[in-house]
């Protein structure tokens, strides 16, 4: 089976004019997306992350046919989004965290009814889908409120429902959890997981909240300045990010810094000591060595914080080679 979404050396270059001097204008090229290649299989759920200005939104706009690529090749379900936009539109759902796809002045209910007819959704199917969305996203009380009166979080939930009424094969979400409270976030995540699991909807989401990615995506694609810097599992990203795991050791009594091969002392606080392990390494031999030499009261291992890993990846401008020696 061919891949559902194919990006092949995809590029988008914006020419921007900048004022240079009083009257002169200078043309400058912004390579928003600079040769990204990757594929997404049907039913995958992919987190698409990167620092501000990395080119995430630009990629999503090309995937949805809003922007025409300046170079490379792009196919979604075998369709070129730029030339066959309307045909693809029936098969995809889009949520922009920044702006609504609903009609600003209409109550949600009317927006949905209009969507039903524009997308030619079968009435029975529509009823089922709407009911489900209303249920899971808690929209019941909001259906008769004009969109402009909804709060950001309420509107976002309304938008997510709107993107799914026509059973799209693929769902693009550009920062769908921006501005949501903890409860709404959990609701939205649960809903997306269900949609993906039950209907096999392919999901691509961009976010700055890495918890979204941790809880939803088996796969992350990290881009920076328009280039792909990582594509793979979260665990791999942790290892590749060169992060360290932390071993928190509670000794029976206060002691000088412990010394064990394979771990590095970080700091201590009374009987508690923190040791650092390279992310890829197993903790077992270290723990065994510790237990043999010191009186242990308790012990726990912490994974490197994903935020930290990402921050390191962003800062270094790429993933260090996985073989890079830990410090």
């Amino acid at each position, binding site marked *: 089976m061919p891949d559902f979404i194919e990006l092949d050396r995809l590029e988008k270059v914006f020419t921007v004019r900048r004022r240079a001097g009083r009257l002169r204008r200078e043309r400058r090229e912004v390579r928003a997306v600079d040769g990204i290649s990757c594929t997404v299989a049907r039913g995958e759920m992919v987190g698409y992350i990167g620092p501000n200005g990395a080119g995430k939104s630009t990629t999503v706009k090309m995937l949805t046919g809003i922007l025409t690529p300046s170079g490379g090749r792009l196919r979604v379900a075998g369709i070129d989004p730029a030339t066959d936009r309307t045909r693809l*539109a029936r098969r995809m759902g889009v949520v922009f965290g920044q702006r609504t*796809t609903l009609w600003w002045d*209409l109550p949600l209910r*009317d927006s949905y009814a209009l969507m039903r007819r*524009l997308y030619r959704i079968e009435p029975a199917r529509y009823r089922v889908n709407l009911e489900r969305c209303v249920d899971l996203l808690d929209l019941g009380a909001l259906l008769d409120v004009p969109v402009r009166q909804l709060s950001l979080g309420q509107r976002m939930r309304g938008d997510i429902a709107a993107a799914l009424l026509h059973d799209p094969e693929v769902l693009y979400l550009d920062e769908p959890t921006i501005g949501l409270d903890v409860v709404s976030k959990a609701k939205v995540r649960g809903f997306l997981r269900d949609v993906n699991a039950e209907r096999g909807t392919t999901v691509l989401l961009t976010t700055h909240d890495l918890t979204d990615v941790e809880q939803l995506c088996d796969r992350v694609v990290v881009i920076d300045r328009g280039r792909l810097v990582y594509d793979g599992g979260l665990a791999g990203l942790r290892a590749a990010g060169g992060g360290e795991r932390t071993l928190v050791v509670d000794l029976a009594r206060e002691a000088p810094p412990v010394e064990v091969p394979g771990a590095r002392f970080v700091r201590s606080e009374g009987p508690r000591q923190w040791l650092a392990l390279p992310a890829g390494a197993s903790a077992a031999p270290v723990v065994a060595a510790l237990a043999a030499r010191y009186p242990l009261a308790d012990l726990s291992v912490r994974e490197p914080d994903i935020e930290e890993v990402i921050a390191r990846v962003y800062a270094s401008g790429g993933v260090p080679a996985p073989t890079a020696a830990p410090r």
Partner: protein
Amino acid sequence: MVDGLRAYALITGMWVRSTLAYRASFAMTVVANFAVTALDFVAIMIMFGHVDALGGFAMAEVAFLYGTTSAAFGLADLLLGSMNGVGQRVRDGTLDVLLVRPVPVFLQVAADRFALRRLGRVSQALLVLGWSLVQLDAASWSAGQWLMVPMMVLSGTAIYGALYAGGAAFQFWAQDAAEVQNSFTYGGNTLLQYPPTVFGAELVRGVTFVVPLAFVNWVPALRVLGRDDPLGLPGWVDFASPAVALVCCAGAGLAWRAGLRGYRSTGS
């Protein structure tokens, strides 16, 4: 195409329903729209209080010109007047939202905030046109003369519509081009309400060959009214309005495509 028109009908229908929800305010805006446009004609009537003819045209003839151009303009304004809003959408990037729906963007932009109150202008124009036909003793006209009337209104609608669409397309590059476009549509409409003979030949030539507004009513109307053409064009030109309208629409369509292809959204 049929799909697109269905979508246009659905979206405009939705806007109509939502305006009709406030019946009183809707009625008021229609009346206001009617009254404002009627003022144009009142100005003409006042003028005829002082003179018997304007550029050699009697009041009924001027009313005929007024009715045909205003009806055409009113219909185009009703159907495509909302396209003026596209510049704003380009600037703030909300055009993105229209681009992800399975409906041609052109029709979505045209149907956006469809304003039924614009029927005010159309009905006022049709009233004046009806009155002029009575005054001109149109009952004695030939079938050919009669046929010219709907042809003028329909071709005129298409020509004005092309101006709206072309102006909207231009807004992809210059987001405040709405002003320029308004001067062509509103300005053109005001111009065409008067006989060509009151204007200089240069201007008449301009509206014939450059912006072919003269084909909305001047050129065909002179034939219907049995008047001489001030530019002395060959006789068949009097029937060229539908062809001119088609060419205008094709041009506007191309411009729209080019504009949409160059759309680059916004950074956030």
